[in-house]
């Protein structure tokens, strides 16, 4: 392919356009990262390298608030990711391996609908729903909302993986005296695992990151990391926010990289 296709950098204006996109996308992130190490309360004037804001994050007057928010965020993200991954795996099995059923296309649409509905609509609808059934708002309401919108994100990589696995492996397992349960446990599940793991990580990050829905359905005084950061920013941007943002960015990059490596490992294997 390399021989027949033209080098893309030969197109006029390609270089300029690429740099423009990269700068618009990543310059703000880099500024945040750089200024989180600024030895000054200013967010615009560089006064030398320091870890003072990281110290502030972990040991400053607001440390307790952020720590609690982080614990809340991680708890919700883990529980929501686990639950939505289980649900997504089961739906993928039913959709792809089950017998064709009436309304299969509609079901596929329903599973993926949350991806297409504007988040603010989901947020308002969820809030109204919880209010109308008298459900107390707090950690549990956040968790339930997160599980719902995480399902399609977990479903997509899992379904893609399952679609790539020919059902001849299951037939071979059955042929070699495995029961349906053993066939799933010993053959299909291990083969699906890369997809399940990347679905899990995607759901985890989406949950960790969510602000709009969380902000609507959280109870008073219950904060996740994004809502806590938003609350702090409303009182003026301090460099400790930049430090927290940098830490979250690092965590996200780490998880996305792991997810990528896992899915690549899975693809190489067969």
């Amino acid at each position: 392919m390399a021989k027949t296709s033209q080098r893309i950098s030969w197109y006029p204006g390609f270089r300029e356009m690429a740099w423009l996109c990269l700068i618009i996308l990543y310059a703000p992130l880099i500024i945040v990262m750089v200024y989180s190490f600024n030895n000054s309360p200013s967010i615009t004037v560089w006064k030398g390298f320091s870890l003072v804001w990281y110290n502030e994050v972990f040991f400053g007057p607001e440390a307790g608030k952020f720590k609690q928010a982080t614990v809340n965020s991680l708890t919700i993200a883990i529980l929501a990711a686990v639950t939505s991954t289980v649900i997504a795996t089961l739906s993928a099995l039913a959709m792809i391996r089950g017998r064709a059923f009436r309304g299969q296309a509609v079901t596929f649409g329903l599973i993926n609908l949350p991806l297409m509905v504007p988040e603010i609509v989901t947020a308002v609808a969820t809030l109204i729903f919880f209010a109308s059934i008298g459900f107390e708002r707090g950690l549990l309401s956040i968790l339930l909302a997160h599980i719902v919108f995480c399902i399609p994100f977990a479903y997509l990589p899992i379904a893609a993986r399952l679609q790539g696995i020919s059902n001849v492996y299951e037939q071979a397992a059955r042929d070699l005296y495995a029961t349906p349960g053993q066939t799933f446990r010993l053959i299909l599940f291990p083969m699906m695992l890369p997809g399940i793991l990347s679905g899990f990580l995607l759901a985890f990050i989406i949950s960790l990151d969510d602000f709009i829905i969380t902000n609507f359905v959280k109870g008073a005084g219950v904060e996740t990391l994004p809502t806590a950061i938003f609350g702090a920013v409303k009182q003026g941007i301090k460099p400790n926010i930049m430090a927290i943002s940098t830490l979250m960015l690092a965590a996200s990059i780490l998880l996305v990289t792991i997810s990528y490596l896992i899915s690549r490992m899975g693809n190489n294997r067969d």
Partner: protein
Amino acid sequence: MTDTHAIDIVSVTKVYPHRTDPVVALDNISFSIGDNEFFTLLGPSGCGKTTLLRMIGGFEDITKGQILLFGDDISRLQSNQRPVNTVFQQYALFPHLTVYENVAFGLKRLGRDTDFIKTQTHAMLELIRMAEFAERKPSQLSGGQQQRVALARALAPQPKVLLLDEPLSALDLKLRQAMREELKEIQKHTGITFIFVTHDQEEALTMSDRIAVMSNGQVQQIGSPKEIYDNPTNIFVANFIGEANILKAKVTGPEKSPAKASKAKASKAQAAAKDQVKLCVDLECGIKGLNIFSQSQFQKGKQINVMIRPERIQIKPLSRGRGKVNTVGGTVKSISYLGTDTQVQLLLDDGESLLARLQNTIDATSSFGVGNKVEITIPEIAIRALSE
């Protein structure tokens, strides 16, 4: 081959339902496969051979009929309850398990004791000469090695019948030829009944004890490779197995008493074709009064098709001798050199085309070229009448 039947197919029909036009994949077929037999289902794609194999394995429902395994009805059993194993066309080795784990998989599911699993798995790996690859993953093996592991995996649980679904089709020619020998060898060594599906007639002829030729969901003929090649029952079988010249002929009556010279030869051929009758026919190309073998009796005066294999036709340059029996004149249309033999397209004087194959033996010199007039001899013992 003993008289015990490993498999009995009893009036099996398979219909794939469809609202407007349901597809009949198998149309009420019945036959038996003997114990220890290397049995091949041969036919073009879509003939139903794979469907039948998958039914024996338990991967397809049977619409109507029964399949018996050593006398027991297995039609309604799940595939994990049937003591038959399959070598899949795509091998279907479990990619996350090692070669050893793949081969041991069936034995473990059967709950055999650990020592037996170990011994048996190693014996299987020895059998396919893959012992040193036991700890490899399937992706680290070549196509031929994966093929052999798939075979070992299916043989390890010592099935009563082994099903092979075009297992050689993904291999290149040399490997395919080597694997034919190996499969045949393993079948003899283990004594397991093999049911082998292929669309490759050469594969079927070289490996099988018996072949069932299938087309359009029906069995066209069952017999040994020699029976099927020498005495095809109809045009489909004649054309599908090897190459065939189909000529038109007219039945003139029952056998005329053969000339003395050909009596000895004729009686030898008679032994190979037991259930056959002899007819006297005139070929439309001009050879008259031939005594040929037929599997069915035909009315006098009936137009029939007869078959002759290209390698049984003899060609000589035109000469002026006497006593030319069963000979017609013709012209050489084209000559193709194929290595072991030479293929000659002939145009008979009456306008019919004929294909001949001449072996390139050490003293074979082409004594004629394209456009030459030649004498074509069609020996009557090589001609077969075909049924409709």
